[in-house]
């Protein structure tokens, strides 16, 4: 009950703040000359600062794309590292222009916090990791298994739902932190470990021998992560949404940062993509060209930050294009 009251209080304060927010993020961004982007305080592959302090990652690239679209320069982004609790307030109070911080799109957040989700840049979901040695190919073969998990998260509830829906039993072994969970898994306390898939991959690197474990293909919950903007500024909302869509469309069209100059006139769809739609969004016509030239298409960003050649080694899976068996689908640019 206490939690409900405090949630109500926070959402009413946020809603109050939302009404006081004036439109015109685009003008503000243009006049200050940079995009202020809210990121995490460190999440491998999604938003993370390297040794020289440069932010990089899949979430960071969304902000860079918006900067490329609006200001013509992908480097004109300033980052505000935010904890999970601060993130919505920072957006509401105008401290940041975009929140791109592995934030799950849910009805409650969309409906009651005065925010809008501009799209999905990573389809996450709860998955399972097992030791290769036990030779299991699917979670359905794991009836009666011992499962390591972090207690007090929705992970626990999703797991219970999944196992009871499939008429299987399990024994849960609870830990307080994700680090303790992976230590328990490594010590052989459990047959499998469950967590959000993106996290499973970064936990796997912490194993003594990362290739000894595999992530199973099953995804048992929906965690669509995407960039968030303030509600009530449709112009800015459109720019962020279409910057992300441009990255996904470019991959579909085969445009990369390397070949966009030579491909410009290859097909009518590509001509439409690179030429003159920016006016409809209130930004420069070269917006889509700038995004692809400076940041790259969605696939490039994925492979560079979390893909198979990175230590995380995340397969495209759900995040592959719809035409290749995934669910990444962007409306056409025309």
């Amino acid at each position, binding site marked *: 009950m206490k939690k409900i009251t405090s949630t109500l209080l926070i959402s009413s*304060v*946020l809603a*109050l*703040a939302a009404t*006081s*927010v*004036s439109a015109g993020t685009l003008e*503000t961004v243009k006049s200050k000359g940079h995009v202020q982007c809210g990121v995490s*305080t*460190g*999440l*491998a*592959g999604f938003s*993370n*600062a*390297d*040794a*020289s*302090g440069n932010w990089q990652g899949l979430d960071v690239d969304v902000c860079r794309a918006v900067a490329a679209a609006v200001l013509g320069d992908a480097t004109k982004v*300033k980052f*505000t*590292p*935010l*904890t999970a*609790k*601060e993130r919505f*307030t*920072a957006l*509401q*109070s*105008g*401290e940041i222009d975009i929140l791109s911080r592995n934030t799950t799109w849910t009805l409650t957040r969309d409906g009651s916090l005065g925010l809008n989700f501009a799209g999905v840049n990573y389809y996450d979901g709860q998955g399972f990791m097992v030791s290769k040695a036990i030779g299991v190919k699917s979670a359905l073969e794991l009836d009666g298994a011992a499962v390591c998990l972090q207690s007090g998260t929705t992970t626990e509830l999703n797991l219970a739902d999944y196992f009871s829906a499939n008429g299987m039993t399990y024994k849960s072994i609870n830990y307080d932190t994700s*680090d303790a969970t992976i230590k328990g898994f490594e010590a052989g306390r459990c047959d499998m470990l469950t967590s959000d898939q993106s996290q499973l991959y*970064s936990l796997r*690197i*912490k*194993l003594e021998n990362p290739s000894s474990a595999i992530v199973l293909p099953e995804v048992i919950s929906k965690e669509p992560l995407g960039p968030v903007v303030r509600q009530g500024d449709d112009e800015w909302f459109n720019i962020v949404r279409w910057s992300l869509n441009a990255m996904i469309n470019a991959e579909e069209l085969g445009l990369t940062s390397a070949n966009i100059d030579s491909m410009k006139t290859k097909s009518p769809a590509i001509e439409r993509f690179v030429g003159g739609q920016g006016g409809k969004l209130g930004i420069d016509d070269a917006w889509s060209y700038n995004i692809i030239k400076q940041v790259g298409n969605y696939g490039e960003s994925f492979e560079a930050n979390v893909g198979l050649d*990175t*230590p*995380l080694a995340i397969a495209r899976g759900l995040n592959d294009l719809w035409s290749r068996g995934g669910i990444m689908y962007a409306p056409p640019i025309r």
Partner: protein
Amino acid sequence: MPVNHKKSPSLPPPASEVGIVVWVKKNLFSTYANGVMSLAAIVLILLLLPPLLDWAFFSATWSGSNRADCNEDGACWIFIANRIDQVFYGFYPAELHWRPNLAGLLLIGLTIPLFIKSFHYKNWLGAFILIIYPFIAYFLIHGGSFGLEVVSTTKWGGLMLTLILSAVGIVASLPLGILLALGRRSKMPMFKSVCVVYIEFWRGIPLITVLFMASVMLPLFFPEGSDFDKLLRALIGITLFQSAYMAEVVRGGLQAIPKGQYEASEALGLNYPKSMGLIILPQALKLVIPGIVNTFIALFKDTTLVLIIGLFDLLAIINLALTDSEWLGFDDEGYVFAAFVFWVFCFAMSRYSIALEAKLHTGHKR
């Protein structure tokens, strides 16, 4: 009768009273209980120390550039070396590191004369360090005037930020705490109740709540777009919080001063500020040095809580480095290093406090 005025040479102690064996027997195995505990301690040390030293030094990797260079059995300190700039300065631009360095050196240079006995202008120098120096340090580190480029506080981090947070917290909370302690013992009811309410309010809430309110709720009450610096908010929160604790420590000292001292200062015809400043406070503060330093050490470590509001202090920088996908899984090295740095500073403060007590021991030394 002839008197021998020469002092006869002292004889060496009997053989049964000297030597390492006797020392061990006397100190470690004097009783059965003592012997058992000594043995247990020795076994524990032999069990823990060699593997620890082996991990931290002998099998450790000291040079290299990436995780492939790391030795599996020992600590991999190249993880820290790789991030050392960030550990010290956060995101402060590398080419401007000389500015915080200069500010630090200046502080050390200014403090040295305070420890020289024959230096006569200690009061003036002390006042300069406390009142003028913070502005110099601010202009050096933040920039914005004298042609120095502005480095916004969002780029401050690492050990530098930890030190700034604790130094400001310590320097600002002590005078505030003294005023509050005096206020709480005041005979004026309004003044007294304000101080009591203040102290009890701030002591009644956790620091994490204060920081959280300062960072999450406060911005909602400001007009949109007004950017009230996050570091400043945290600093104000920490100072207000810490001054309440300081007030109670100082009040403890005030209560330990015998009534005769108060009466004596009144009998001398001293007014309130003079009797407090010349008679009561010097004695009271001297008594509570351990308590004050205790509070400072606690504050120094509490500054790590700023990581929940997205400021990158030393610990938060280590946490950030640990999420670098090139370096996942080096938690042990990261946290051991952070613990070591904190220990060095806390130990230094504690030694300084002991030295200060020894210097001011007049009257109460046992």
